[in-house]
């Protein structure tokens, strides 16, 4: 059964945060000085130094810690699939918001083993319909539609 060590994952993340903090701190050296006040660099520096110190501490503690908590990789499989679908949904909704929302909901529910056809069709069609009525008809928001691409 594939498992991820929580201690190692935390340590790896903390190392990445240390490196990122150093890079961001370096970026603040290019910020202009303030006029009669600390300037735009001081507050981010205070925050980044705090993050840097906390991350370094976390790396040290992770090395010392003996307990080995595991994250079951199987649990991440389904969220991973839905995350990938969500990326496709974001790409698609820029062109056709309502159609892609209906397809996304339908696909997700199928993957999550919702087998009832009335629920599958009811939610996939009903949800975008409610969004259309509330946000487009009442609130006059404009969502990207396929018709919009052709000047409709």
């Amino acid at each position, binding site marked *: 059964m594939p498992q991820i060590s*929580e201690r190692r*994952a*935390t340590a790896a*993340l*903390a190392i990445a*945060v240390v490196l990122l903090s150093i890079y*961001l701190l370096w*970026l603040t050296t290019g*910020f*202009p000085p*303030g*006029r*009669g*006040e*600390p*300037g*735009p660099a*001081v*507050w*981010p520096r205070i*925050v*980044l130094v*705090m*993050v840097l*110190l*906390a*991350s370094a*501490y*976390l790396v040290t*503690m992770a090395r010392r810690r003996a307990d080995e908590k595991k994250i079951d990789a*199987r*649990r*991440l*499989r*389904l*969220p991973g699939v*839905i*995350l990938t679908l*969500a*990326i496709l949904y*974001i790409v698609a*909704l*820029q062109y056709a918001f309502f159609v892609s*929302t209906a397809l*996304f*909901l339908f696909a*997700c*529910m199928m993957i*999550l*083993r*919702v087998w009832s056809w009335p*629920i599958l069709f009811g*939610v996939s069609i009903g*949800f975008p319909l409610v*969004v259309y009525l*509330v*946000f487009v008809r009442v*609130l006059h*928001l404009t969502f*990207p539609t396929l018709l919009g691409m052709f000047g409709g």
Partner: protein
Amino acid sequence: MLEALAVGFAGALQIHNVLFLIVGVVLGIIGGAMPGIAASTVIALLLPLTFGMPADTSLILLAASYVAAEYGGSISAIVINTPGTPGAIATTFDGYPLARSGYPVKAMCASLVPGTIAGILATIVLIVAAGPMVNIALKFGAAEYFALGLFGLTIISSLSTGGIAKAAIATGLGLFVATIGTDTVVGFPRFTFGVGALLNGIELVPALIGLLALPEAFSMIEELGMPGLAPQKFSREFPTWSEWKSLIPATIRGWLVGTLIGAMPGAGAAIASIVAYNEEKRASKHPEKFGTGVMEGIAAPDAANCATVAGALIPTLTLGIPGSSSTAIMLGALTLHGLDPGPDLFRNNPTVVYSLFASQFLADIAMLALGLLGLTWWINIVRIPKGVTAPCIIAICFVGAYSVSGNIWDIVTVFVAGVIGYAMRKLEFPVAATVLALVLGDLVEGNFRRMLLLSHGDLLEFFQHPIAVALFALSLISLGLPTWRRFHAKRKAA
């Protein structure tokens, strides 16, 4: 004053005013419950409808929707872990865990009833003590707001389930993200990496929706992937008498915090509810249980949230300074009807003012009645199978974020924040600390710099402000106490 109030009630109880009051409450609850639609959005949408109305009817409709929208935000916070309005952020901390543990009715009651009581009490303060309250609020300068922001941040010490280092990183992440965008003092773009969409900074609402709601959807999906999971049972149990009694002190504390912070221009419901939650936890005999579904942890922030409505009206009506973006729109409504907000308003148009006060009471009562009626309807949402709820939450998050400014970037923000929030959850970083830091980041940094600008860079000038020093001392105690308690408990165990 009582005579004027009686006239106000007589005006507010006219049939057409009652009708618009109920319409305002219903629309407020529905709008507030929708993620991405803040109370100010609901009022802004209703404003054009009021152009042809008499001034008192117009204000009654707007005030009723404002009151109800703040409560409405808590509904989605409890049911799907997504605060409908920024003021409901702290409601997610205990409201959602209590609903998920099988007691959605208790969670909703702990939000609705204290919110109503605090709203009524805050309206009494608005009528009786608006003058002195304004004087206190006006004593708040940059140093005091900076100290207030720090005080709000100290709640992280009690949210640090994964250790103080993880809490510090989570807080730092929120504070850092709040710095992204064009610096408002010198106009310099910070950490934008040449991306035009980042010049205005990261939008708060999409980031909050992403951090809080998306990880919840992914957790539901995770559970669906595990075999042999028993379906969860939900109780329709109302709070017991002893539970109601335990909510009284929380309600009073929340009301006091909400009224005072609401009266401070620019502070707002989100800060009030966070501070109220923090205070409630500090006052509790069992602070370690907070975050697991404690009813006081719902009552205090919701009482504060609802009390900010009347609190925010204090500077709006007495000085013409809006206490929140919602009251700024109401100020616009007053001006549209030829009324001049400020001390003259009370002298020249007492009927309108007291009708507004009376409508606040009536709106709170209508909110309670409609809230109780809708209780069973709302809790049905938690009973929907997770295979349907989870994809709907993801879609609601995207729609809610897009509705804020009609920008695809906001959807990307939700997604990125959601992935970060999910990873933080898996590795036991407190997501709530990032959320708080995001909300308070601008307040803390802006006032820190303003304070140093006013004192010509002299940090010690801070200690010349007694309110700021008192808040700072409370922050230190708030940070130190849990650490000392932990240390003491460890020593005792050894």
